[in-house]
């Protein structure tokens, strides 16, 4: 039976951001922009959605005199990501 595909993760940019954050301990905005190649405005909107869902946490700080925002995936985010990958496997008939 096909599993439920979380609509919050089933979009290119949000899934890209989550895939980056699951591979690192933390990343800043510049890193995410470089890796995804998306516009700053678009990234901000998607990060806001992921943050509201409790999938990522946002920490605002300073690097020297400049502001630097760091993003981390939360436990809830890891769980949602794992469920999403499991659901994908059920659609693609990949043995679990």
């Amino acid at each position: 039976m096909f599993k439920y595909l979380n609509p919050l993760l089933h979009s290119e940019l949000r899934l890209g951001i989550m895939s980056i954050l699951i591979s690192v301990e933390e990343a800043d905005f510049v890193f995410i922009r470089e890796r995804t190649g998306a516009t700053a405005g678009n990234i901000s909107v998607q990060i806001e959605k992921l943050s509201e869902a409790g999938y990522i946490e946002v920490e605002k700080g300073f690097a020297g005199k400049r502001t630097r925002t760091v993003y981390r995936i939360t436990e809830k985010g890891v769980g949602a990501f794992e469920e999403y990958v499991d659901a994908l496997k059920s659609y693609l008939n990949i043995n679990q």
Partner: protein
Amino acid sequence: MEEKMLNEKESLELISQMILNTRKKMEEGNGMPFLIWGYATFIVSLVVYYLLSTTGDYHYNLIWFAIPVLGSGGMYFSKRKEKKHSKTYIDRIIVNIWTVIGIAGLLVSCAAFFVRIPVLPIEMLLMGIGTALTGLVIRFKPVIISGFVGMISCALPFIIKGYEQIIVFGIVFLIMMVIPGHILNYKGRKKHV
């Protein structure tokens, strides 16, 4: 990348591609910490050797504490210049390894003022362990080998007597940290080309 829906196959491809790209980016070598601590130890060793061998005044042993001062200062400026945009689990493991090794090294140095202990071999063994562990974590052979060379070299101060031990100590750090540091940087630069 934009805000669009993907089919299942595209989603899975995107996940594996992003994870792979991020991992590749993380594997870029950074030998700066090894260079900073290696050169700091080597230079301080030469200074201590010169002052002790010419004056015989044991108070000059206090100059050893210039190593953590130079090392920490160098690390502070290097980090400011580096502008790192992400931190991995590997970064955290390495920081924790060196925090423990650093504290142990500092405790041994402080204890040597109260108890007669062979400081130089203990420091070489500790730093060798830290280097070998770092090499194993980042999976980089030159660092693993140099770490074990450092650990084995801790026997040298028992064979070589007198102030010459200090010179040997400095040279071991040159081999254990400076050489793999330069190799790491060279590999990192090559990946950028």
